[in-house]
């Protein structure tokens, strides 16, 4: 069944290397040493165990017949929803309900929901003879449930991943981009109103001109503009001072160097002080003195940048670039619409997480709790990202069979 000649070795190697680099970096992030004092956490061992589990899983996915995976999509989606509900009733960890503690491991249902939601949306979007509005409704209907559940965890960053994946998949099924603009518009105007109410007004005026020019039905025009206006006004009024503070702190982290801006500042210092060649493996001072409390998860790139410098960061970027370009190329090679949509979704969610994570590590994107795919410590994250790559690999391998 599996045609080895279609197996994309490059994709596999890129994935393998990235996870390996991740384990090496988690190893250095696990060690904080000062003089003769050394503290070693066991994160890298745990990650290694997951890596050992993931490699057979990768090949298992390639081996099992596709209809089994197809049959698992709907139950998988339902199970992940159930898990997202269960997680809300577990004890809080670090002020939010994101993890289900099982023994010494933590399961993160929102990670599982990422792939199951992408798969179920692509399954339904791929059905023939759907109008654009039906496609949009289907996509939104399926995405909104996990998004809502993750919102109340709360984990704002992860919900963004869902939105990005959803939009890219809708684009892939030829939904006109203007519809998506109309749908995103309220978010844009709300974001703008935080910075300046005037920019939001300008945006809404531009939007209504655009809608008028494109000769939309007046009901759609009216609803769209009204939603924008009310959304902006409501957010303008209800935004709490600490939220405004958080945004302002993003613009100028030095406002509160021990509070909200702390991580951004410390991360920038870590990465920046790495300069061209880095401080050397295991030698990061920022890391060793524990300036970034969570430097093995979301801020792992700061450890990488500090110890290995710009040149090796470019190497890491090249690996990511290679992996992502492979996925994009496979989009054109896959002919089954459902799988093509799924691949688009997988690409978007990996790329978006990569961009946001590194962006926040170097201080050009606000701090959101998004991990660096394949590199950050986290079993659920590693498994789900790897499963996604395995699925793309499987689509490639089996394209001849389905043709």
């Amino acid at each position, binding site marked *: 069944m599996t045609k080895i000649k279609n197996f994309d070795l490059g994709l596999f190697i890129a994935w393998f290397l990235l996870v390996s680099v991740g384990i090496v970096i988690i190893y250095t992030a696990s060690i904080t040493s000062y003089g003769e*004092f050394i503290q070693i956490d066991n994160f890298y061992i745990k990650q290694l165990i997951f890596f050992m589990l993931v490699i057979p899983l990768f090949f298992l996915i390639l081996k099992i017949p596709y209809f089994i995976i197809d049959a698992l999509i709907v139950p998988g989606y339902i199970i992940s929803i159930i898990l997202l509900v269960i997680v809300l009733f577990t004890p809080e960890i670090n002020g939010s309900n994101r993890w289900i503690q099982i023994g010494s491991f933590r399961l993160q249902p929102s990670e599982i929901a990422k792939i199951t939601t992408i798969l179920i949306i692509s399954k339904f979007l791929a059905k023939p003879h759907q109008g654009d509005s039906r496609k949009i409704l289907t996509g939104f209907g399926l995405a909104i449930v996990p998004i809502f559940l993750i919102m109340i965890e709360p984990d704002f960053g992860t919900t963004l991943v869902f939105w990005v994946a959803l939009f890219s998949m809708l684009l892939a099924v030829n939904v006109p981009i203007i519809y998506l603009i109309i749908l995103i518009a309220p978010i844009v105007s709300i974001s703008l109103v935080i910075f300046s109410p005037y920019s939001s007004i300008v945006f809404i005026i531009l939007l209504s001109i655009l809608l008028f020019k494109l000769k939309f039905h007046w009901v759609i025009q009216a609803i769209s503009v009204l939603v924008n206006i009310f959304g902006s006004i409501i957010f303008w009024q209800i935004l709490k001072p600490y939220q405004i503070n958080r945004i302002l702190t993003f613009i100028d982290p030095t406002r509160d160097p021990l509070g909200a801006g702390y991580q951004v500042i410390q991360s920038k210092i870590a990465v920046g002080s790495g300069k061209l060649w880095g401080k050397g493996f295991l030698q990061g001072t920022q890391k060793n003195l524990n*300036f970034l409390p969570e430097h093995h998860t979301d801020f792992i790139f700061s450890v990488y940048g500090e110890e290995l410098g710009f040149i090796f960061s470019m190497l890491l970027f090249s690996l990511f670039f290679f992996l992502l370009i492979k996925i*994009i190329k496979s989009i054109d090679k896959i002919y089954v619409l459902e799988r093509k949509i799924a691949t688009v979704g997988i690409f978007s969610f990996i790329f978006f997480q990569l961009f946001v994570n590194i962006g926040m590590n170097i201080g050009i994107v606000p701090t959101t709790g998004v991990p660096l795919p394949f590199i950050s410590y986290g079993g659920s994250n590693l498994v789900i990202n790897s499963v996604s790559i395995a699925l793309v690999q499987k689509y490639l391998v089996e394209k001849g069979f389905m043709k």
Partner: protein
Amino acid sequence: MSNQSISQILKVIMYVGFCILIIGLAKLQIVDGELYSEYAKNNYVKKSRLEANRGEIFDRNGLPIAQNYPAIHLAIIPGFIKDVDSLKAFLSTCLNTTSEDVDKFLYDTRFRTYRENIFIDNLNQQQVAKFAEYVNYFPELRFSISNTRKYHIPNHFTGYIGRINQQEYARLKDKDYHYNSFLGKTGIEKEYESILKGIDGVKLNLVDAKGKDLDLFNSITQNRNNINIPPVNGMDLFLTIDLKLQKFIDDSFPPELRGAVVVMNYENGEVLAYVSRPEFDQNIFMSKIPNNVWESIKADTTKPFLDRVSKAVYPPGSVFKVITAGYGLENNIINRWTKLSYCDGGLQIGDKYVKCWNRYGHGRLNVIDALKVSCDVFFYDLSFRIDLDNFCYFVKDYMLSEKTGIDVPNEANGFFPTTKWYKNMYGPYTSIRGHMVNLSIGQGEMFMTPLQICALFAGIANEGVWNKPHLLKKAVKGDSVLTITDFIENLQVRLPNSLENISIIEEGLRKVITQRKGTAHSLYRPNRNIYGKTGSAEHKEGKETHAWFAGYDKDSKIAVTVFVQEGGGGGSVAAPIAGKIFDYYYKNIGSYNDEN
């Protein structure tokens, strides 16, 4: 949109995304790399402030006036607050703070939420004991042990210190001030803030991110973590004040009366005593003032906060007559023998009869006798020959109606009118002559501080050389000594009277004391050279007059001015107080003072 194009779109987005990341990373690591590695080096070094000791304040003989004492303050780290309402409730039961106090505090400290911000100064023993019991429930509360100020005598010249406020902090944060710094708010504390404050030191510790000291590894790091810049303590101030004299005056001033007493060394302008009554205890500002106490102080009609020596102005009354006499002599309107109109208890001016203070009259007098008995009629008559605007300049040359420049901030100007001012106030047809009559005896629209009067008499005593009154004798730290000349230039001014004319005035002032009819004959001491002038200034219909006495003692070289607000007659109320001061100083201090 074809399926081909979705991959194109994603590709473009990816290229752009990578470009942004590479540019951002290059900026951080290559362009700003040097800067950030500098940050990284400093990052694991925690700076903590070593507070400099504020200079202490002593009198001229080294008796303490203001000193530092260690005290326990209550600090709050707003970022650690779990439940604001329970904190408010707790603080209000322990310290009687209101909910608004806490809200205002939290608002003020909103940009330093993870720092210790001093909330209440100077906790007393019971409060500390109460807190110690509960402090575990409130991780945001911290005790902070640092200096507080204790003022040994209630007075108006030292002023007091207080925690820096928002505006001051915004202005001074680059000048070595901390958001918990103390700052001189008034008086000497404010005037000499720059030398009292000292320079805070810095203690550098190698720490981990939680601020935990890594002293443990001291041996490994070869003392890298013990780089200290020690604080430079402030300079101690020795004031010209004589604390014993100050206390004596405090005790001898009638407790129920308001007023001011200034004693100056007329040869150099050193202020020996600076008493304003009623007094207030500055120590109340060193901890939280209970609201009811604060309200009662504010409602006090005697205005205890008012510094009556240099910040309040009053009509000088008859003590001003020396100026009128000086003007007459200097402009050759009169000489020492000139006798002016006959005083029959008043003077007929046009259709008005203006009374002298003595309704039995003084007869025809020359200037010396007019000063002696303080005859109003002599000066009324003299005033007809005086041009108001010239007179105003003359008064200014006598350093009246302008700041003396004493080293206590916010001194009052005093006031002396001009023709223009009268025309503005009372219209163009007002009779300047009528006003002039009033001004000639120190009444009407002129206001002076007791300090100005004292400096004036000191100038006369010092043969027409006016010395700027000042409170700083020296500022000392180790071997370095600063004196008043390092802070104030032009300490001396020549008064606009010739020596000859001054001696004529002095003759009058001497007769005030020596002769039986002199208004302050009660001060007569055989073998002593005391000079003086009394005044009873009317200021409001139906109120007691302000009692003034201004004079000097040529033996102990001090000028004394006593002002009793609404006290009555200068000769009967103010002069006896001055007499006690002359006697006390002559007996106790005059003898050893010369050593200093």
